[in-house]
């Protein structure tokens, strides 16, 4: 253990020098702290944007297992109302966001309590099922100790059989400081590393050595949450696809782009394969027909149950392109640079900016100016610059 700690460049936080965080805040001429606080908040928001590295090869076809700790420690009330509720609420948002950003990704959830690991949902692309499953956890009681090794093994069992072009990931949400494992957990971490499974851990209490080792060995991330908003940031960091592993291979994957069939064709008797297991299968509703075997599905994306072809729609693929071609960070314009003759409104939301108070940001490509809120909105949600979108010279 000591060897691992020594090899780290950065030691523990409590070993570093004392930070005088309050000295960052400076009173302005009117004696108010608001502008100073605003600066700090804006700085934090923008730092996240600048940290993104473009033009990496990303693992776009994601297969992610979330391992959720349901041990007794999740009853702690340091997160409000308690850890479990807080995590479940964030997890719902995470799942929605994950499928929004990775439409062809797949996700599964594993829970661990009482020294056991249970598969809550299998790897699947259906967002609703996962969210329902997460909601159902609200009524369960966290119990006993978690088992990191058991749950990693369960996840690895499935991930091992995922074709190697896809990215295999595990995100562990770990509230406990202990883990009850049946064998040597280092064997498990080695096995995960050999199988190119990227394991990240989000800790809720304090740093745990084995979690740190696990994340480091499998080139994942390890973060300890300070409070609810930090926890959300840590979790949401896993929404964007990770860089591709060094040993990955590239493949061409055969995919089908089925067409939605019009109502008139549905005079023919047809039922979908996705609702077969339900008491009342759906007949005669519009759906997507697999171009190879003509089996019908209600929703895309899906893997054809008959011929195994991945069925997607073109917008789903295009939705993922923004990870590969992100909007470049905007340049900040200092108040001195802004001449009085220039238009002082934000290009996209028309908010009037007073150059002494609100910072403006300029797109390097189209030279339009944006306010801080639009800057964040464009980079985090919209993923395309309104100025460049209309510009024929720089088509996307």
């Amino acid at each position: 253990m000591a060897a691992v700690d020594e090899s780290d460049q950065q030691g523990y936080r409590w070993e570093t020098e004392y930070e005088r965080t309050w000295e960052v805040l400076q009173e302005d001429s009117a004696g108010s702290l608001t502008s100073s606080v605003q600066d700090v908040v804006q700085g934090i928001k923008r730092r996240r944007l600048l940290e993104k590295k473009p033009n990496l090869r990303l693992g776009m076809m994601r297969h992610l297992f979330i391992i959720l700790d349901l041990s007794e420690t999740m009853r702690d009330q340091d997160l409000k109302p308690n850890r479990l509720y807080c995590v479940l609420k964030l997890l719902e948002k995470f799942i929605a966001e994950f499928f929004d950003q990775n439409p062809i990704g797949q996700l599964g959830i594993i829970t661990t309590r009482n020294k056991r690991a249970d598969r809550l949902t299998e790897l699947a692309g259906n967002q609703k099922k996962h969210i329902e499953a997460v909601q159902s956890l609200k009524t369960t009681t966290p119990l006993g100790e978690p088992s990191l090794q058991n749950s990693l093994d369960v996840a690895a069992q499935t991930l091992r059989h995922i074709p190697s072009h896809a990215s295999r990931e595990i995100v562990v949400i770990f509230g406990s400081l202990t883990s009850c494992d049946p064998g040597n957990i280092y064997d498990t971490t080695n096995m995960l590393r050999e199988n190119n499974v990227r394991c990240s851990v989000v800790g809720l209490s304090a740093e745990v050595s084995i979690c740190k080792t696990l994340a480091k060995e499998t080139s994942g991330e390890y973060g300890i949450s300070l409070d609810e908003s930090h926890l959300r940031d840590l979790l949401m960091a896993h929404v964007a696809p990770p860089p591709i592993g060094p040993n990955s291979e590239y493949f061409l994957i055969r995919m089908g782009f089925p067409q939605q069939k019009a109502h008139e064709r549905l005079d023919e008797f047809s039922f979908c394969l996705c609702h077969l297991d339900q008491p009342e299968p759906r007949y005669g509703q519009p759906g997507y027909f697999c171009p190879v075997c003509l089996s019908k599905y209600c929703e895309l994306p899906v893997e054809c149950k008959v011929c195994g072809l991945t069925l997607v729609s073109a917008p789903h693929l295009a939705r993922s392109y923004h990870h590969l071609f992100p909007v470049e960070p905007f340049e900040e314009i200092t108040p001195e640079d802004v001449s009085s003759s220039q238009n002082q409104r934000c290009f996209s939301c028309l908010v009037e900016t007073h150059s002494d108070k609100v910072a403006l940001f300029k797109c390097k490509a189209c030279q339009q100016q944006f306010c801080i809120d639009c800057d964040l909105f464009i980079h985090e949600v919209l993923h395309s610059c309104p100025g460049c979108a209309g510009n024929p010279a720089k088509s996307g």
Partner: protein
Amino acid sequence: MAMTGLTTLGSSDTGAAGVESISNILVVILDLNISWWSDQMESGAIRNGVSSSHASQQYSLAFSLDQIFIFLNSYLLIQPNNKVVVLGCLESQSYFLYPPTGDASGPAINDSRPEAFRMVNEAVLNSVRNILTRELSKETQNSESSHETVFIGALSRSLCYIHRLQREAPKGQLVNGRVLVIETGLDSSSHYMHFINTIFTAQKMNIKMDACVLGEDSVLLQQAVDLTGGLYVKVDNAAGIAQVLNTVFLLDADERSKFVVPERVQVDYRAACFCHQKLVEVGFVCSVCLSVFCVPGPMCTTCNSVFKYMLPQKQKRKGPLTNGKTAEVSPSSQPAKRKTGETQRERNGNS
């Protein structure tokens, strides 16, 4: 008041908690394509067999604008919380027509409704006039005019604007946005990535997109409408646009379920391959950058990744339908056997 207090306490995790008032914003994106509107003025009159200059006025932009004003004003009229935003787009540029961006006509605060109508109408008319005169003077220099319009810039700007209004809304007020695109020109497919990003953002913000197409059918808008759950209407006669706007697009999404609305259009979601721009039903997708190809190649032309080997899944399935293990082994062992067989035969022949 006590009731609202209770609801906020009771349903803290639903999005609509503590909503006291709802304000609706309608963003109208108007395509000001010069060549289309001028063509329309000539051909529209000829098509209907009238040649007098008075009749051709019915197909002019000014006449259509008047009709759009009727629509905007009635939208403002049906609910006090309704607001409109008008954007114009011309070829590759987009402009805010209302609220006005210029300093000259600052929005005067006036509560009487007719005044509000006048403000919208005048602001839009003035900005359209300014834009067109500026553009026409430019047009004389380079006579190249196209039917293509890029409305995506205007679309993303309107989303930013709605986002700002949602941000600035006082607590307890819910801001619903809706975007109506009135398109005349042809689609420009060169901005497909921007377009998709914008549409999915609208979908995420729960903003419905409606489209009223005056010219050719627009595949892009059909997709946008289908993805966000709006309405798509193609109008053959631009002279009667007010009727369509007022009957179909006046009501916001909540009330639509109670009325008979046009049927949804069937949308083609096939992908165009990167190599030949051909629409494909079954394609090959690069695992790194998700580029679509209609025929498999040795490497990806977009991200330069060299593919390991072709179609691993397909090869597996070609094997005999026995247990998984034997199916994998047999393709490699069979050719080997055949070779030995052949060599034996050769030897036999030789001897």
